[in-house]
């Protein structure tokens, strides 16, 4: 294949992958809008829109250079390479913002989004995928993380953990007597639509992360990556479905979709390394982890309306470990130890830096809405308009 053909095809493929990832923007927005109460839906949609706008712009102006040095790429158009990388940024912040829905103010979160996308995330990328400023230091990472189980999902998850610790739970979520008040999803079709848009976006996320499709080997790698990605999602959904059915004889679709997403996160570190059956096991464990993690975080009083800690943090870690377990290959530098080191170094950095930044922002502009504002709903207070003004609310 001539270099020009390869350049053209890889550019086209990067654009294709970018577009798929951008479907995750409405994907996250619909998922979260469906999971929160009707009085907070507009605010959630606004936050998702703000994240895409702000994070992408910050990455364009500052973050990309921190992560990769200059704009540039030999084997595809540098603009396509940028677009593909840019598509990732918002996801990290989405993970965080989703988990603090229904009580966090948009404006200070938007400030955090700027710092996350301009500094924190680019630094993580620099260490893992980019120009690697840690090279030759003792922190130098050689974790294998194809599409970001750690770099994207855990990083977002750690930031969320910091945010929940600082912001606290939604008013009324935990009763003084130690009970947990269930706050059900308000719009299940939106949840389902959002989950499937995310799922489809994942094909671009992971498939595109192979970096090239323009040789027989890389075409195989891309196709295998997408196939394994999908398989892990299937396995996550099925596992949670079976667990739900055995336990309750009821199929809670929100949990099952979270199981699918958990499976997808868990495969993300190494979908190109596995055979076609390993993802079944990895995804199934990913799904199970969600089922156990959701009530576990509730027991810790970490209020996470969309289950983002369980899906992204827990499975981000599991997925990165899974590479070390199932695809360890010391000859190519892939070891369980290297994976663990990556998880820890990035985890510490992501959590600590997010905590500091959120703590500082919280001092200046409180992140949490007052009880009255939460009662009335974020939509009216933060956005000035309701999501469904003509639909009668069933108190």
């Amino acid at each position, binding site marked *: 294949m001539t270099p020009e053909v390869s350049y053209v095809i890889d550019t086209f493929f990067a654009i294709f992958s970018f577009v798929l990832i951008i479907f995750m923007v409405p994907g996250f927005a619909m998922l979260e809008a469906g999971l929160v109460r009707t009085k907070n839906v507009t605010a959630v949609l606004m936050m998702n829109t703000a994240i895409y706008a702000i994070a992408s712009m910050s990455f364009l102006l500052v973050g990309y250079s921190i992560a990769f040095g200059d704009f540039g790429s030999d084997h595809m158009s540098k603009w396509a390479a940028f677009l593909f990388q840019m598509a990732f940024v918002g996801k990290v912040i989405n993970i965080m913002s989703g988990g603090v829905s229904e009580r966090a103010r948009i404006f200070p979160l938007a400030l955090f989004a700027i710092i996350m996308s301009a500094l924190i995330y680019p630094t993580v990328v620099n260490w893992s995928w980019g120009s690697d400023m840690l090279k030759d230091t003792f922190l130098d990472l050689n974790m294998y993380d194809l599409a970001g189980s750690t770099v994207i999902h855990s990083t977002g998850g750690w930031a969320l953990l910091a945010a929940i610790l600082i912001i606290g739970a939604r008013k009324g979520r935990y009763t003084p007597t130690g009970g947990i008040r*269930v706050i059900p999803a308000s719009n299940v079709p939106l949840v389902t639509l959002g989950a499937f848009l995310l799922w489809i976006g994942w094909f671009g996320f992971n498939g595109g992360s192979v970096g090239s499709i323009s040789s027989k080997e890389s075409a195989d790698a891309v196709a295998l990556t997408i196939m394994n990605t999908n398989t892990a999602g299937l396995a996550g959904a099925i596992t949670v479905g079976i667990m739900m059915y055995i336990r309750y004889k*009821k199929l*809670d679709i929100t949990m099952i979709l979270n199981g699918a997403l958990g499976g997808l996160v868990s495969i993300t570190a190494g979908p190109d390394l596995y055979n076609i059956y390993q993802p079944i096991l990895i995804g199934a464990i990913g799904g199970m982890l969600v089922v156990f993690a959701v009530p576990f975080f509730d027991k810790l009083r970490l209020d996470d309306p969309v289950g983002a800690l369980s899906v992204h943090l827990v499975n981000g870690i599991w997925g990165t470990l899974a590479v070390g377990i199932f695809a360890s290959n010391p000859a190519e530098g892939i070891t369980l130890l290297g994976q663990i080191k990556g998880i820890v170094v990035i985890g510490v950095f992501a959590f600590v830096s997010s905590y500091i930044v959120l703590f500082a922002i919280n001092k200046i502009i409180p992140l949490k809405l007052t009880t009255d504002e939460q009662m009335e709903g974020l939509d009216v207070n933060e956005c000035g308009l309701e999501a469904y003004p003509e639909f009668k609310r069933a108190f």
Partner: protein
Amino acid sequence: MKKIEAIIKPFKLEDVKDALAEAGITGMTVSDVKGYGRQQGHNELYRGAEYVVDFIPKVKIELIVAGEDVDSTVELIVDAAKTGKIGDGKIFVSPIEKIIRIRTGESDEDAI
């Protein structure tokens, strides 16, 4: 003139309406309400936590009738709305002192 309020099961509305219409009663006002009573609500499940939904959807029919029609109307409703299972609902009768038809200004019995 009396007001008859009947709290019934939603799926019985059609039957009650038809029974009333057959008896020549052509005016009524209906609203959806939620009831709390002996009938148990159902359990729901969300993300691994079960919880009870106590309030059960019901329909309220409001109907103004002339005094002499109260008993027959109540009977009609009871017949049409009864399933014999718990949660069938209640009928309340209360006094009305005045009625006005907005369109014409007619009042009382003429306005029913």
